[in-house]
């Protein structure tokens, strides 16, 4: 009787060891299942943290000349004070063959919860270099202002302004 029990225990032990080894290997070799995984929404948290507000009247008054002003309002929509927000502005042409994008940067410190900060950029909107590209004359390139506000946590929000020619 004892011999039967030993044999039974040995067989069970061998079975579980083998099954465990196979399950372990299967878990190591298999990529995580993608079933039922929701895609991560882009910049989901940024909508609740920082918001950039632009003045439509001022945008309408911008001219393709130097010494233009762009005023922004940065709103902290989180429950915490933001120690610093890095605001960058890129001015480029719709004509991607033209180099000479212009970059501007402002650092805003200590934006209180649900508070705002006003930012003023002095920008140059004069037309970039003129040279032959593949764009026909009937398609004048528009200026593009790309404004990005980023917190130290890496959360960012973007506003892109397309100015008429």
């Amino acid at each position, binding site marked *: 009787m004892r011999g039967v029990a030993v044999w039974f225990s040995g067989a069970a032990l061998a079975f579980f060891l083998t099954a465990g080894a196979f399950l372990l290997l299967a878990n190591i070799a298999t990529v995580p299942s993608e079933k039922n*995984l929701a895609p991560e929404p882009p910049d989901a948290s940024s909508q609740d943290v920082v918001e950039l507000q632009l003045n439509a009247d001022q945008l309408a008054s911008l001219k393709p000349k130097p010494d233009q002003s762009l005023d922004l309002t940065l709103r902290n929509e989180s429950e915490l004070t933001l120690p610093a927000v890095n605001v960058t502005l890129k001015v480029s042409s719709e004509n991607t063959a033209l180099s000479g994008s212009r970059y501007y940067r402002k650092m805003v410190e200590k934006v209180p919860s649900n508070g705002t900060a006003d930012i003023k950029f002095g920008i140059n909107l004069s037309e970039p270099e003129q040279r032959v590209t593949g764009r026909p004359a009937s398609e004048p390139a528009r200026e593009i202002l790309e404004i990005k506000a980023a917190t130290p946590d890496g959360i960012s929000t973007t*506003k892109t302004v397309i100015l008429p020619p």
Partner: protein
Amino acid sequence: MAKPGLLVVLLAAVLLIGCTPAEESSIAPLTPTAGRVDPGLGPGTRALSSGPGYKGSPSWSPNGTRIAFTMDGYVMDRPTTSGESRRWTTKDFVATDTEWTSDDTLTILGAASSSGRGAENSLYRANAGESPLALERTAKEVLAMSPIPGEEGLIFALASGPHESELALTRNGGTTYRLYTNKPIKGHVSALSLSPDGDEAVMAVRPPRDPRTSELRTFDLRQREGREVTRLKGNREIVGTPQLTQHGIYFVSGKQTSSVDDDAPEPFFELYRVPAEGGASELAPGVGADFVASSIRVSPDDDRLAVIGRLNPKSPINLYVLDLAAKKLEAITANEDMEIKTDPDDLAWSPDGSNVAIIARGTPSTEAEVRTEPANRLLRDFYNLYEIPVSDETAR
């Protein structure tokens, strides 16, 4: 007692390992170019590019996995699914057209930008495996080009004199070519394409002392013989690239206007068909008397013609497919508020004939527009490439 205890521990370990769900990992959000979108052209449309840039001349690679195009004068290509773009030319070069001659070789028609607008175009070869942005010139004073379907070669027309053209062949993406005949074509070739079987070329030609592109010619590449098919009378001329099909030669014709007045009426171009052996041209059967055509391309299976145009002068521009045998026209896009580009080369079939690439944008505003995405992810605000699915049963 120790053995049953060990068995319980082992059983628990096996269950723990085996039943623990695999660790979840976040899936990156799809880029605007990766999925089907409806930018205003109808369901099933997929963006193949995004962001600013004046895009043109789409061309699918022979295996259909990449698409090349011109953008503000330089040449780009990108995967047709998702992935990074590649730039093939530098900013001191202005490309007007590009075609794949193999899955990793592009042939580019263009000129150095320092030459100024209107400079003579040359033909260049660029290979993805070689040093980036390196172009090798194949021929000078090239007027038009067309890839050979199913082969790693290209036929092109080059100016051999003030009023003469010649056809030439280059193979395997090489930088050498050979002329087809010692007997030049009278006039300058303005557009060139090959039949889907690659045996014959059709050309739009501007004859000597004629300011219009008024002559339609074919050239049999096997027999090395060419002939005039038809010549348009009056002030009409051939617009864009004629297409040689098993049901005849299709071409767009109309009266070009030289007016720069924005209020001037849009030129009225119509789609015509003429027998390949020559004869009188007729309005293409199946499109309707009021149809206004812009650009055309024959499908790889030689059965269908993709047409960008309007059903009548007041209807929106759409992509249509004409079943050449059944003479039946079907709208592929459902355009409501998009501007579809109508330049002659802004239309391309995928190699398997299941998709057509077109270029479109939303109507630009006269006021400043604010978007919440980075510029390089915007679609409707700029001319971008769209893949339009076309089933085999379309128009049949």
